[in-house]
């Protein structure tokens, strides 16, 4: 998997770095000017998020620079950490121990291996078909029937969200798009950028204008103002980046809209799960962001849809 580092890639990376520099400056100015405990706490959280963004961009950039394999490894590790957070919060029983061992050490690496060798026919069905059928067999053989369906469903869900869906991000590198050979790295960058910047704008618009809550019982931070502002900004930015993708500006706007909608939905669903389990964040790995799962919930839901839309219409 050799990816060309062309001029457009440098524009994309340079744009993101410029954005980070600007946000760091804004964060610094705000930290000097804000008074009051609540305001200061918000700004502290904002600055922690910006610092974490530097880190995440650096890691992602490094993975991109190593070509395809670095990205596969990076998202494989991301899956591993997300899965660990997810299963930690999900009650399973002793009878699931061996199944969980398979999940972590056989199914997860196998999925990313299939992505690395670009075997679409198998990576797209391995978890929904084979893992789906084999794991409950292993759990049933362990002989514990208590809450069996519930436990089985939870493990399958964890696999689908944390492994299957996330693996669609590096799977973008395997798409054979006519006239775009060797440039798929930009497509992956575009996808992650639109999904994440939509989260950022939803957060920012929500903090500035947010009044009307969308689903107060699920997530008090999600407001109509944040939703509309975030999706509009991210779609505009996505449309403006059409030159780095195989899409026309209008197509790019449509794709960005799909990414941001799915991303928003992902955040909502993962919030509902957290709320049900009585926690605020999935973990505490990333300063200001909570856990890995808190950061990638939007990617999980958007990646498979973006992949299949692109595959259907452009290959």
């Amino acid at each position, binding site marked *: 998997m050799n990816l060309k580092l062309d001029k457009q890639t440098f524009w994309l990376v340079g744009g993101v770095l410029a954005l980070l520099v600007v946000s760091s400056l804004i964060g610094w100015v705000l930290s000097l000017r804000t008074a009051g405990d609540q305001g200061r706490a918000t700004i502290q959280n904002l600055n922690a998020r910006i610092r974490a963004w530097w880190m995440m961009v650096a890691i992602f950039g490094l993975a991109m620079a190593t070509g395809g394999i670095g990205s596969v490894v990076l998202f494989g590790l991301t899956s*591993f950490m997300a899965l*660990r*957070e997810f*299963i*930690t919060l999900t009650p*399973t029983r*002793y009878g699931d*121990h*061996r199944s*969980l*061992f398979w999940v*972590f050490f056989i199914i997860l690496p196998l999925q990313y291996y299939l992505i690395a060798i670009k075997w679409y026919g198998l990576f797209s069905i391995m978890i929904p078909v084979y893992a789906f059928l084999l794991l409950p067999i292993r759990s049933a053989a362990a002989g514990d029937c208590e809450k069996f369906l519930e436990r089985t469903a939870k493990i399958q869900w964890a696999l689908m969200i944390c492994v299957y869906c996330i693996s669609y991000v590096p799977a973008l590198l395997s798409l054979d798009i006519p006239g775009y050979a060797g440039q798929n790295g930009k497509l992956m960058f575009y996808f992650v950028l639109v999904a994440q910047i939509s989260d950022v704008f939803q957060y920012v618009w929500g903090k500035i204008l947010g009044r009307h809550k969308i689903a107060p019982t699920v997530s008090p931070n999600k407001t109509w103002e944040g939703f509309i502002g975030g999706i509009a900004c991210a779609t505009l930015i996505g449309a403006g980046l059409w030159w780095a993708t195989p899409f026309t500006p209008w197509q790019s706007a449509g794709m960005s809209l799909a990414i941001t909608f799915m991303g928003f939905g992902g955040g909502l669903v993962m919030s509902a799960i957290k709320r049900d389990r009585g926690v605020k964040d999935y*973990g*505490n790995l990333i300063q200001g962001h909570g856990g890995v799962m808190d950061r990638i919930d939007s990617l999980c839901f958007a990646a498979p849809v973006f992949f299949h839309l692109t595959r259907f219409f452009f290959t």
Partner: protein
Amino acid sequence: MTRTLLVVLSKLVSGANIRWVGCAPDVRQRIYFANHTSNLDALVIWASLPSLVRELTRPVAARDYWIKDPLRRHLANKVLHAVLIERKKPTVHDNPLADMLAALGDRHSLIIFPEGGRQTATEMMPFKAGLFHLAKDRPDVEFVPVLIDNLNRILPKGEFLPVPLLSSVSFGAPIKLEAGEEKTRFLERAQAAVKALRQS
């Protein structure tokens, strides 16, 4: 070298979130007493201490388990500097309490599991009397309650392959044997102090 490796490995596998809730890490003499749910317990508590404190802290462990094969023997004796005690048939010459007091000396700290064996039940077993006798003999030592959470799902009893979930180790506020306090009362209070960390 082996020590560093073991510390890093146990932190990676356990993903332990280390919480100093009721006290700060300190090199003063302490007895850390914890709930016991997994073979990894002693290792993870030991690894979660800062290195200066770790150097002075010795886990107390069952001799029958740790002398079974050369690897365990090496880990227990050379790496963890464990205090191996007889839990099945204590005699006058083979008395766990005397061994623990000797190991404590005037500068070491201990990690002990007053429930005795590892538990599969969700409820904690009643604490054994050893903790009370230690408290009575060494009033100068701090008794720190420790709660280990989720480690039993990482390596349950009877399994040898760990599933790398996330766990947590919480250190509570030290407790003291009150003047004239009875054995059962003290042991109940000690257990309550461990349980209370679940809500903190």
